[in-house]
């Protein structure tokens, strides 16, 4: 089935899909941007040639028999039923063909697994449902979340908004790496298993909570490469894309400097005295960045994730509330990695929103709670 005939068959569908890639790149590998991805594509092409040859040969014989050796043509059955030579041959020959496939594949496996000699290491942490990146050599990090608006995703209402070019494959902040350098990616996860994969770069590595795995890539071309989480991780599995922006060395240096400055500016001043209003405003930011995916922006929860509006914990004692946030429970991860200010702010926000009315939590409370743990 060629792409062309497919298009003739379904002109109406074409209107729906504005292929983001050029014609022909639509039904096979995305154009490889690393040497490994190129080798993978090469291996696949080689396999396809061998397979097609076997297919034509074997099925040629079968269809010849089907066409000629039929009763309706008066063909009589010849009741032979074994031939040791033939049987040994068709055991050995496939084994040799396999050997011819295994050899080149093995060298790619070894190259893929060799993460030594990387110029920088970036840690990718899977969360339900976004990725967070830490540039370990530069001391900063950020979260990278789906940028496609919900209105484009929901078709329930008026068929949904028109979908953008990079629908579901766009993020608010891309992973930026320099071209031509070996980048080592450490993967881990905060809650469940995710998987970090970018087809054009030829990488895919599961991110496992509590464990660190590594992989690497060396992009040969400047450009933007898009992938998705590829391990089922719950309801937001389809909505945590990975976007890698490969830039020149100079652009990368500029970008790093701006990120480091921004990270510094973002930090809460530890000596600041927080007024209730400041704390609640900060809490809202923290809530929307971390909690709203599960408990929803309106605090009503969804599915197995409980509502916070009217909840016993959010209206109960500070200690219980702190305990669950610092230690987690079932699906609720522990949020100990947030700063004292962030935790105090978000708890205060939860205790004083959506009709909840409970006392404020201050950074000092968090510090005490951590100490008690």
């Amino acid at each position, binding site marked *: 089935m060629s792409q062309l005939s*497919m298009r003739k068959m*379904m002109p109406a*569908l074409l209107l*729906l*899909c504005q292929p983001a890639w050029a014609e022909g790149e*639509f039904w096979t590998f*995305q154009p490889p941007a690393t040497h490994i*991805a190129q080798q*993978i594509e090469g*291996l696949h092409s080689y*396999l396809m040639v061998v397979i097609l040859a076997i*297919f034509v040969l*074997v*099925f040629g014989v*079968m269809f010849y*028999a*089907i066409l000629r*050796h*039929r*009763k309706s043509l008066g*063909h009589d*059955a*010849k*009741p*032979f*039923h*074994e031939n040791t030579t033939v*049987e040994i041959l*068709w*055991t050995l020959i*496939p084994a040799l063909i396999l050997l011819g*496939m*295994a050899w080149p*594949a093995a060298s790619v*496996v070894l190259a*893929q*697994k060799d993460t030594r000699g990387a110029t920088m290491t970036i840690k990718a942490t899977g969360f339900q449902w976004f990725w967070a990146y830490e540039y370990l050599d530069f001391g900063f990090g950020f979260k990278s979340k789906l940028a496609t608006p919900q209105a484009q995703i929901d*078709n329930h209402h008026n068929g*949904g908004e028109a979908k953008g070019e990079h*629908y*579901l494959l766009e993020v608010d902040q891309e992973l930026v790496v320099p071209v031509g350098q070996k980048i080592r990616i450490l993967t881990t996860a905060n809650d469940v298993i995710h*998987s970090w*994969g970018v*087809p054009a770069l*030829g990488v895919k*590595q599961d991110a*496992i909570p509590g*464990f660190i795995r590594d992989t690497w890539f060396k992009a040969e071309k400047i450009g933007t490469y898009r*992938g*998705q989480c*590829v*391990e*089922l991780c*719950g*309801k937001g*599995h*389809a*909505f945590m894309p990975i976007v890698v922006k490969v830039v020149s060395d100079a652009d990368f240096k500029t970008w790093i400097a701006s990120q480091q400055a921004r990270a510094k500016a973002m930090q809460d001043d530890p000596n600041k005295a927080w007024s209730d209003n400041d704390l609640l405003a900060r809490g809202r930011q923290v809530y929307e960045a971390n909690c709203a995916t599960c408990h929803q922006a309106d605090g009503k929860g969804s599915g*197995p994730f409980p509502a916070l509006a009217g909840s016993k914990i959010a209206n109960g004692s500070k200690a219980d509330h702190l305990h669950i946030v610092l230690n987690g429970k*079932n699906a609720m991860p522990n949020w100990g990695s947030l700063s004292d200010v962030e935790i105090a702010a978000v708890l205060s926000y939860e205790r004083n929103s959506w009709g909840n009315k409970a006392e404020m939590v201050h950074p000092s409370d968090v510090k005490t709670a951590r100490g008690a743990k």
Partner: protein
Amino acid sequence: MHQAAHTHGGHEAAYESGWARWLYATNHKDIGTLYLWFAFAMFLTGGVMALCIRAELFQPGLQFWQPEFFNQLTTLHGIIMVFGAIMPAFTGLANWMLPLMLGAPDMAFARMNNWSFWLLPPAAALLLISLFVPGGAPAGGWTLYPPLSAQAGMGMDLAIFSIHLLGLSSIMGSINIITTILNMRAPGMTMLKMPLFAWTSLVTAYLLIAVAPVLAGAVTMLLTDRHFGTHFFSAAGGGDPVLFQHIFWFFGHPEVYIMALPAFGIVSQIIPTFARKPLFGYVSMVYATCSIAILSFMVWGHHMFAVGMPATAQLFFMFLTMLIAVPTGVKVFNWIATMWQGSMTFETPMLFAIGFVCLFTVGGFSGLVLSIAPVDTQMQDTYYVVAHFHYVLVAGALFSLFAAVYYWLPKWTGYMYHEGRGKFHFWWSMVWFNVTFFPMHFLGLAGMPRRIPDYALQFTSFNSIASVGAFCFGLGQLLFLYNVIHTIRGGVGPAPARPWEGGNTLEWEVPSPAPHHTWESPPDLTTVRRGLIAQAVEHEGESDEPKSENRA
């Protein structure tokens, strides 16, 4: 004719009537029938779920289901099709046909047989009830990977108990099959004279006994992690989430062959019958079956290439996985050699069997592509894998089951099915199956992840095509139901004892429909020998004959 000596008309009234006949069933034919209808009901249930999935994926964006429910659909679809439809269907066939083919009066353990069937409906009920409990059905995929499955609501517990019941049922069914095959063959029916379907059922039963407890162990550990404070799979408590995957796939890969080997057996009965030739390479078929079974225990790691393992382990699993292509290739070559120089006709069972050979081979090829670890890193968890295992399980297991039903329906019901409608069912299924699943290879190559309710725009055309194909394929299965019911009600007329000119195994020696009790006294040796023409043993040379008759 021989069957004259085995007419048991006098016993026909011996069984209960009405519901009691089925609830208290100990007759292998009744239990086989129960299994087959149960499997078909599950096939329709899982099929409706598949159509719900395809409806959502017809176009990008969310239209029918929320992601949470979509994940429940994909999870239940997988569990129901594997454990509810395909496996019971093969057990049903084994129940119905093994005693007939081996010259045994019934299965070895008639009451356990009843018990192993009647565990299935409650297991299915648990799975379906899980849709209506708080938190909904399990939504972590049929592989139930923790920690995701540890997060789920009580639907997961119901699924775990359901899997326990299904496992118990499978183990008892397997013990029954093994004992029947080893102990109850008619005199003169040596192991290497058994029909190949008996061989594949035997090996499958051993596989099940080996791995069903492994799965039961894995889900039990999950259960205690969820409720009793253990941390087998939780890193926070010193456990390892990947441990579950190792245990699961140690079960899961043999499971693949549990669903494929009986299919090989069925096809190895049908192709010789309609080629009017003995099966080529009977002994090598037996060896191939056994070596596939043994290899299946050593390749589980290929499901985990993206999990991260040392390069040496990756190479080990890659090489062993590739090796499976050798015995599988031997089987395909043997089937083709059986057709070669035959005198073929193409009734519906033969069409499905040939369809099986073609499409299973395509699934085998994509399996070979996936076995190459570096290529697998691109394909892992994409639609390429979905395409691959549907070629093996739908065009493989399911098509072989259709072939088996059309092949043995005259024996079961005593009537012939409508050939034209049977052929239409085949061609309809063949075309729409490929329209549904072939484009998924392209989606996978282009990088579309599996198990997502919504996708990027460049995947739209192929998804739409697949959805159209799925609905047409699904609709066609109603025709299958119609064909079966029509046959039960008289079909196109009574079937002779041997409706297929080339049918040589023992089941064709008893009248159609097969009487309630058959082979109460074992078939005599000449009948056994007559029944073995298809197994080639007869052609070893006539000199063999007096010798074995003397022994008897």
